[in-house]
């Protein structure tokens, strides 16, 4: 089985936000929720870099560990998913997530956040694959159709890579070798306790 990962090649990201738009459109994500976002570091200064970030589907995910109702599960492809039926909207996963991935439909005063929503690696949720109810709760299930996440597929500069960790790491390594530089696989050390050696 593949071990699915995201890798954002920050030296290629042009902050076009197509990944963000593609994600919102593909999954019909409600207003106010961003499963993916592009963060620009040192904006406007020399050495500025943009990184597209969503749930990294961590190894030994902290969100799953702190969830008081154990609503998270990891698929055979190592994608971290959750059940909106079990989620109680406590917000703990957001406090534990190193990447700010969990999102909530409402601000959350008096515990009224609503059910958590996050990137599913286009693998939706626990409902039967590619059903209407699954789409309504979690969005499209592209993985079940044999497709990879749309954000990476849409990426105009092919900065964002999604797929089996070993394959995308090899692609990135080859790029770095060829062009002679690379600022590394952002978030990998935190999410997977390993990085791409280049």
């Amino acid at each position, binding site marked *: 089985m593949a071990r699915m990962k995201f890798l954002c090649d920050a*030296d290629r990201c042009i902050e076009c936000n197509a990944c963000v738009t593609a994600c919102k459109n593909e999954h019909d994500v409600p207003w106010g929720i961003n499963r993916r976002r592009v963060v620009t570091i040192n904006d406007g200064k020399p050495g500025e870099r943009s990184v597209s970030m969503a749930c990294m589907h961590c190894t030994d995910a902290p969100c799953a560990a702190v969830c008081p109702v154990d609503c998270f599960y990891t698929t055979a492809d190592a994608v971290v998913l959750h059940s909106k039926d079990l989620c109680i909207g406590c917000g703990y996963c957001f406090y534990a997530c190193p990447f700010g991935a969990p999102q909530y439909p409402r601000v959350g005063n008096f515990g009224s956040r609503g059910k958590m929503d996050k990137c599913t690696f286009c693998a939706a949720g626990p409902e039967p694959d590619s059903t209407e109810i699954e789409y309504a709760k979690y969005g499209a299930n592209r993985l079940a159709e044999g497709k990879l996440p749309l954000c990476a597929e849409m990426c105009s500069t092919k900065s964002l890579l999604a797929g089996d960790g070993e394959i995308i790491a090899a692609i990135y390594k080859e790029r770095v070798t060829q062009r002679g530089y690379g600022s590394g696989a952002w978030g990998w050390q935190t999410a997977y306790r390993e990085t791409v050696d280049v």
Partner: protein
Amino acid sequence: MRICALGRLIAPAIAALILAFGLFVAPAGAQEGTSGSNPTAQAVNEQQLLNELKKIEGRVTIPNTSAGLLQQPQGRDYRAFHEGALPWIGGIVIIGMLLVLALFYFIRGRIRTLAGESGIKILRFNTIERLAHWTTAAAFIVLAITGLNFIFGKRLLMPLIGPDAFSTWSIWAKYAHDFVSWAFMLGVLVMLVAWIWDNLPDRYDINWLKTGGGLFDRSNRTHPPAGRFNTGQKLIFWTVVLGGIALSVSGIFMLFPFAFTDVNGMQTAQYFHATIGVILIGVIIAHIYIGTLGMEGAYEAMGSGTVDLNWAKEHHSAWVEAQQAKSRGPHAAAEPAE
């Protein structure tokens, strides 16, 4: 037509010229590139940012500006606390307190009133005081159970009732915790105002502490004099008031998430809230023990509001004397416990 044909002839020639010029210029540019700027020389570096700033922040173009926080590895510490330290602290405090109390009961037994009941009752807590106490007490029990559910629920209750029922219960527990908290906060404030004066240190405290309040005298003959509240009760009072205020403040941070602080502040609020919460639960278990099973005649003080005169003389001699002096005095109107 002839012009077009001419164009067809000239266009490739121009293209060839541009290409030749380009080829001529390109090596110069490339040379400048290698000798001049490396495109990543000034680039931000993830590990360096994490080492220097502990987290990585940037700018986002979506309205939610807090999404600019790219990485906060502090989430790991939160997880370590929440799943590592906290269940242990909670378990040790609560089970430890139960064991200590069981041991105390086994050795010391129930603390009896030596002189037996006199049949004369005196007022110890008036209606407002009892209302404040029981509001706080009832709220605290709800808050303690629903709060412990966040730590131990998935470990103890979920395997018994299944994930669906446990999720439903936990949603209600969450709302109960969020709304009952206001009754607790109000109760703590009323108790603070009502009892702060009688809980200031007085001249009996040192002797009470020296004799351990007579708690450890198995013959039950040690009854150090005490005012309205003995030193042990004062310690309970200050623990509840200060702990309650700390719980209230950290709780309000969580009731209005991100209104006062960022994600790291929210984590800190939980560290305080959960740790103080489980410690206060342990203290209150001891309080409940000594107020009911542990001491004869203690429960009625807060139950009916009156206590037997002999009980009062044994446990709060200075208070009884003051009360009696007051009722003998010129203002003989029976004043409630003061």
